[in-house]
């Protein structure tokens, strides 16, 4: 009975995850592919200010944030990591990459991460779909997909959306670890 109910919960969660999420012309990547494609999935807090700077070519503004990692849900690494995202403000100039994620000081987050080709920092994997805000409610720590992407303005449903978690932290971890476990098992079989 409990197993069937649990499967139904995950099925419904999967249906919800399949809904198009707010992003600017992105390929809708299935959740398991997002997890498999991440080099690390972390839970932590954005510490210090988020700074912005032009790249060496003077064509792109990037923003840089430091995240204190409280837990590596997948992968491993240092306790402080640096994340770079497109967009930001330098002096009078602001660049917004519409639908791209942005990090803000003091945010408690769960992030799906991957690397950049041209630098040591991490970036959020799958753009806006790779960033969750972590908040406690009466049911415990909950994850909310961050809808405040660059250039976005929340609508009158913002309050309701902010109160409707996407998953509990525990559910998320179970799902992620199941995906990674299955992936690793397949890799082992193919050796």
């Amino acid at each position, binding site marked *: *009975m409990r197993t*069937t*109910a649990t499967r*139904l*919960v995950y099925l*419904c969660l999967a*249906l*919800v995850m399949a*809904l*198009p*999420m*707010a*992003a*600017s*012309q*992105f*390929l809708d*990547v299935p959740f398991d592919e997002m997890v498999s494609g991440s080099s690390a999935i972390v839970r932590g*807090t954005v510490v210090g200010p988020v700074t912005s700077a032009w*790249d060496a070519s003077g*064509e*792109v*503004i990037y923003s840089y944030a430091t995240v204190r990692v409280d837990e590596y849900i997948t992968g491993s690494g240092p306790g402080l990591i640096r994340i770079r995202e*497109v*967009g930001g403000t330098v002096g*009078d*100039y*602001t*660049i*917004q*990459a*519409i*639908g*791209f994620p942005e990090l803000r*000081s*003091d*945010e*408690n987050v769960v992030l799906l991460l*991957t690397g950049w080709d*041209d630098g040591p920092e991490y970036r959020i*994997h*799958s*753009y806006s779909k790779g960033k969750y805000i972590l*908040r*406690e409610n009466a049911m415990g720590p909950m994850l*909310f997909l961050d809808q*405040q992407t660059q*250039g*976005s*303005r*929340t*609508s*009158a*449903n*913002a*309050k*309701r959306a*902010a*109160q*409707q978690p996407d998953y509990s932290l525990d559910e998320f971890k179970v799902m992620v670890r199941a995906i990674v476990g299955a992936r690793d098992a397949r890799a082992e079989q193919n050796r």
Partner: protein
Amino acid sequence: MRKTILVLAVLTALVVASSAQAYVLLSPKRTWASTPVTVEVNNTGNSTIADGDGGVGQTASAIGAWSNVRSQVTGARATRGDGTPTIELDANGHICTGSCLAATLTGYYHQNSDGSYTIDDADVYTNQRYSYTSEKEADGCSGEFYIEGIMVHEVGHVIGIGHSDVPGSTMYPSVGYCDNGPASLAKDDSDAESDLYSGGGGPGPGCTDADGDGYCADVDCDDGNPKVYPGANDTKGKQGRDGVDNDCDGKIDG
């Protein structure tokens, strides 16, 4: 057991149904200083589009769906800050990679003395990782994305429109293979354009956002403070312990 199934089904249906709302404008609300906005299409087309010019002509034609936009094909490349919105069909601008199909960089906007914002520049980049097609291709579509629909959507961002929750609208955020529906504006899209360029005024349908934090006054418990909005940090750090209900949950610092 049956009760569990019913509850789960209702919850799922509620989540699905809750998404439909209306158009959303970019934040802060901003427009070009004059119309029509001339959007240039760089004449180096996309190598995956076999319609004679790599989708350049089709893109230039399609983006005229917006009544405040005219197109121009050019040999000039997108240059950030040059004041000319430009579409690049063969360059990702070092930013549109991975699962990104196309991205609009809209920045270079400034605030006017009356508090309004004017767009100074915006450019569109395309990810070369995927295959695209156009209505003019002779072999139809298979596992490809229509360039017309994608670019009409991106030009919506260029002129100041965000994503819509209305399924079937051009500014709906997701697009599937072989779906050129976004090339035709829905009423929701036209309403957004009219709001921006026909003296509609205001930050959006039924929304005022005095502090510019992205949350409308009907949900923002303090629309004069940009640090106060639903979901803000209200438990940790300096902001979380400032004696203010930052996240509008009725609890101070909690």
